[in-house]
């Protein structure tokens, strides 16, 4: 509470000062009322009835009105009201049905003045006439309202609501004779005090009990009512029919409602259940409270503005046995904390954005305003300082749709759909996928596929002449590698024949090919380590020498610089992994030292996992002594897969994993593989690529993933003849011993996609049924059913 501010308000002669503060009461409060001098407050409850002086820093107990030895039910107060004209006059409503008046001017300790025992049940509310000193009104649970003249011993008149209990009675400020009463059945009645026989007007204000009402202090035709339906409604009573002007939705049933002084549209509410807070609402913004007081720990039972012309002090009593003074300035303002914006990234890169209109408008309007002084100042609307209101808050909602191409996710869908993952030789898969990637403008990925092909496929599939040729040619046009791969792809169809025709004599050029692919990867090592790795240098030099030897024809050929210039851009991301792998140069060194041994070892190893379709090629492999084994690269390839995964391209990681299969699988953590698979499958499902997703599930070797396809899929089928559920597995019905999967159109057994109507169990080939349904909506089996396919 230390941070709370202090407010001094000058109100004519008197000045109100104070801060947010509270004091402990001995017992829960039921109601409070303020003296007209705004310096004292009375608190009443079942076992409390005290008057406190409101001082600057604290509440000071001034008087305890519960006197006498034996507790009387007359002192168990449901309501209390302080007369707004006579500082000494109070009235309480007792839970036993008694209305008591108190005269503080009495010299004795007991200030009790008069006792009216006319109500049969609890009196819910008492109310003094605003201008008439001796008129008191009460409303009771027994359904009656009574008007007392304090100069007489009993009531002047009795008003029967002709319905359930009266919850509140309130004299109108505008009409001398009028008062409003609210009822448990949801009705509000308007009475003329001179005509007790029937009410002037009645209307249903709420669903369920109307707990409270309050006449507007200035706008005299306005009546605010609050009900158990969690609503506060503001009615214009000046018209012939009560007209609902505003409706505020609160979060709990409304127990009390009080218009805020000097603020035409503000009212304070508190609830009798669940919610302990006091809210101040601007009725024009009916959904969000303008202010919220959160001090109480139990239900707030009574609220009162301290002074009829001061909007900043609110007093409240609560079941938590505290009396509080709240400063409007210290209230928390849910509006201020509420998030004014919503933002969501869509699947394809679309952005949905909702923002408070003033934020968006301010953005566009700010600049001309500051720069341009021609705007006359008097155009500015004068704001009422007590009640700033900038119109209803609203948000602008827009979706930023991404145009195809720039950053949209369409590449993902295309890639997923077009990639070939299985069913063809590895080289073809790599080539195909490289081609797909390149067509989608993803050069880095395309290059990766090509390199994978070089690493893992038999050299025979890559006609060396093509590659070497393209390297030589490419160097002159500045993009040698890309070109080389393009050319190579075009020629890849020739691959196998070329290989078969090849003789041992080609070994040498194959070596070149292989080494150049090694160069492709290792030259970065080379350049980063600045020549510290002698063996690598040696190897490179060797290769270059050989190539130069083979192609000495090109005079513009500046070979040694060429890979250094091009590769950092083309193959840049690979740089990381290669740098990370210190084993590379060592391997090379071994290789250089004893090429024969390691080569044959590795080739032998590579024999095992290769598919049957490759076996022929692999055998011929073994002949090439100096070929680097695919195993040598597996560390690099694994690193590359990790790299793609970390970059958010799990598609590449999984695709390569599937295509390479056993070649790399063993080198990657099983858990990581599963993680990649599940992530990719999730992505595919997001894009509704069910077929691709299923294919990936099917091709995955991870146990947890491949069982996804089988888990929790149950098919319930009826026999199309006897229409009974098929019990056995398979497609032959137990009862009629006929195959159930007959096509109703062509009368053949359906193999493959079978579609059937869930209503009549008849169906058939997808194509046939689709065709049939174009012409007729009845079942093709002739059963008369109007088939429905979703």
């Amino acid at each position: 509470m230390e941070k709370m501010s202090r407010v001094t308000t000058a109100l004519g002669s008197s000045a109100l000062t104070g801060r947010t503060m509270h004091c402990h009461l001995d017992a829960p409060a039921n109601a409070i009322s303020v003296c007209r001098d705004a310096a004292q407050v009375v608190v009443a409850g079942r076992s409390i009835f005290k008057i406190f002086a409101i001082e600057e820093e604290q509440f000071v107990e001034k008087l305890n009105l519960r006197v006498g030895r034996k507790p009387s039910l007359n002192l168990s107060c449901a309501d209390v009201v302080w007369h707004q004209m006579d500082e000494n006059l109070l009235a309480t409503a007792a839970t036993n049905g008694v209305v008591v008046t108190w005269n503080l001017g009495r010299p004795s300790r007991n200030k009790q003045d008069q006792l009216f025992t006319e109500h049969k049940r609890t009196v819910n509310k008492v109310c003094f006439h605003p201008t008439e000193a001796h008129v008191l009104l009460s409303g009771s649970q027994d359904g009656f309202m009574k008007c007392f003249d304090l100069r007489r011993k009993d009531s002047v008149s009795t008003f029967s609501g002709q319905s359930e209990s009266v919850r509140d009675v309130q004299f109108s400020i505008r009409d001398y004779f009028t008062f409003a009463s609210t009822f448990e059945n949801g009705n509000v009645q308007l009475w003329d005090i001179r005509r007790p026989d029937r009410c002037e007007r009645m209307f249903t204000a709420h669903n369920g009990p109307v707990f409270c009402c309050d006449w507007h202090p200035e706008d005299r035709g306005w009546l605010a009512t609050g009900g158990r339906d969690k609503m506060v409604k503001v009615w214009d009573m000046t018209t012939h029919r009560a007209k609902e002007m505003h409706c505020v939705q609160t979060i709990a049933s409304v127990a009390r409602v009080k218009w805020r002084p000097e603020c035409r549209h503000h009212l304070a509410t508190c609830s009798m259940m669940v919610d302990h807070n006091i809210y101040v609402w601007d009725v024009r913004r009916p959904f969000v409270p303008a202010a919220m007081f959160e001090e109480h720990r139990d239900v707030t039972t009574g609220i009162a503005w301290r002074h009829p012309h001061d909007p900043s002090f609110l007093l409240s009593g609560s079941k938590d046995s505290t009396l509080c003074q709240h400063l409007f300035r210290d209230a928390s303002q849910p509006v201020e904390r509420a998030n004014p914006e919503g933002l969501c990234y869509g699947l394809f890169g679309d952005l949905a954005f909702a923002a408070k209109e003033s934020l968006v408008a301010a953005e566009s309007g700010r600049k001309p305003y500051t720069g341009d002084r021609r705007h006359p100042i008097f155009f500015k609307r004068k704001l009422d300082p007590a009640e700033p209101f900038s119109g209803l808050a609203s948000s602008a909602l827009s979706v930023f749709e991404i145009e195809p191409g720039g950053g949209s996710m369409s590449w993902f869908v295309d890639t997923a759909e077009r990639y070939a993952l299985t069913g063809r030789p590895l080289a073809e898969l790599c080539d195909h996928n490289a081609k797909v990637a390149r067509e989608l403008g993803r050069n880095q990925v395309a290059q990766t596929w090509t390199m994978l092909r070089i690493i893992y496929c038999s050299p025979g599939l890559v006609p060396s002449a093509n590659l070497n040729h393209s390297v030589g040619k490419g160097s002159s046009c500045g993009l040698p590698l890309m070109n080389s791969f393009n050319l190579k792809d075009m020629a890849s169809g020739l691959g196998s024949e070329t290989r078969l025709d090849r003789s041992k004599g080609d070994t040498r050029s194959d070596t070149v090919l292989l080494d150049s692919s090694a160069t492709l990867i290792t030259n970065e090592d080379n350049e980063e380590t600045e020549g510290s790795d002698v063996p690598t240098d040696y190897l490179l030099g060797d290769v270059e020498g050989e190539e130069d030897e083979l192609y000495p024809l090109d005079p513009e050929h500046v070979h040694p610089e060429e890979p250094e210039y091009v590769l950092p851009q083309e193959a840049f991301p690979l740089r990381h992994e290669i740098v990370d792998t210190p084993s590379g140069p060592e391997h090379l060194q071994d290789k250089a030292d004893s090429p024969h041994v390691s080569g044959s070892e590795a080739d032998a190893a590579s024999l095992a996992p290769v598919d049957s379709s490759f076996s022929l090629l692999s055998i011929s492999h073994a002949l090439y002594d100096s070929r680097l084994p695919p195993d040598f690269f597996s560390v690099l390839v694994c690193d590359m897969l990790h790299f793609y995964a970390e970059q958010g391209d799990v598609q590449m990681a999984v695709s390569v994993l599937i295509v390479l299969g056993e070649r790399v699988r063993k080198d990657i953590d099983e858990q990581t593989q599963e993680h990649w698979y599940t992530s990719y499958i999730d992505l595919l499902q997001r894009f509704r690529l069910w077929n691709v997703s299923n294919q990936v599930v099917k091709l995955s070797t991870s146990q947890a993933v491949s069982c996804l396809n089988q888990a929790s899929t149950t098919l319930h089928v009826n026999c199309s003849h006897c229409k009974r559920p098929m019990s056995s597995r398979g497609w032959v019905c137990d009862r009629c011993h006929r195959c159930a999967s007959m096509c109703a159109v062509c009368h053949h057994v359906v193999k493959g996609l079978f579609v059937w109507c869930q209503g009549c169990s008849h169906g058939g080939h997808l194509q046939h049924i689709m065709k049939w349904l174009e012409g007729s909506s009845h079942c093709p089996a002739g059963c008369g059913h109007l088939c429905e396919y979703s």
Partner: protein
Amino acid sequence: MFVARSIAADHKDLIHDVSFDFHGRRMATCSSDQSVKVWDKSESGDWHCTASWKTHSGSVWRVTWAHPEFGQVLASCSFDRTAAVWEEIVGESNDKLRGQSHWVKRTTLVDSRTSVTDVKFAPKHMGLMLATCSADGIVRIYEAPDVMNLSQWSLQHEISCKLSCSCISWNPSSSRAHAPMIAVGSDDSSPNAVAKVQIFEYNENTRKYAKAETLLTVTDPVHDIAFAPNLGRSFHTLAVATKDVRIFTLKPVRKELTSSGGPTKFEIHIVAQFDNHNSQVWRVSWNITGTVLASSGDDGCVRLWKANYMDNWKCTGILKGNGSPVNGSSQQGNSNPSLGSNVPNLQSSLNGSSASRFEIREFVR
């Protein structure tokens, strides 16, 4: 690059949240007017409101979609201290109201005593779970034991954060190596500088959520928090919307190195921090691959952030909230100076390959 399509939302008060569904074809908005609206994308790309209903008796702060495997399910949370789960019932096909869907309240979660500020469904692999956080600083995790019965939710965990919570985010990683994890942001505005982002991790042994990390550097009120889609990464990326946009990476320290049984330790790095919004940042949202972050702030703009190959994040686009898109280049020039001050590496890396080569050399040594 972007085409703005303005939608007449017709909410009666502020819209606080927008949320796309799993497939990106539906959108839900929630507002202070206590209602939620569901929008469906037509073939032509227009968004049509197919449902609008009163969900709460207070401002609806957040709305979120469940995985479609559980049906068309939404969760909303509100100032009225409740969170609610809604399911769409599509009317009979011969119904006159064909196309108008009908949302039914399946449950109301009433455990909070204060405003429920965020609600999020857990990643699908965890089952049908829901986390809420409230202004009194408690994160509650509910589970529907029977995914077919959306009306039964049991409160599984209550995590006390000690600070008024404003936002939560589940770690979306589906890896078995990553224990369920939830990040909580606080908008507590008390002047003392307390860390406002806490990360809780599920401990298999104790079967409880325990605090794994606290982002000590974030001491200003946090308005939104979002884990990036994981997609097979070994580390986690977390975006925080506070007085600026911040991106953190959390790399799990190898299990062998930490004492077993305890919460995972993380190596936390702040990889980006941008104050280009010049004001409070209200929302952050990741694209599907976790490579682009969108943020929106009090300046009424959406800014897009993307990392280059050197892991330096930079602004790749600014979109004005009133629908006029701003294309990169010109705006980017303006934003660069402050960018450079935030990320010292960026300026040098922009100079081209020579700078990046230098970086690598350092790395090798």
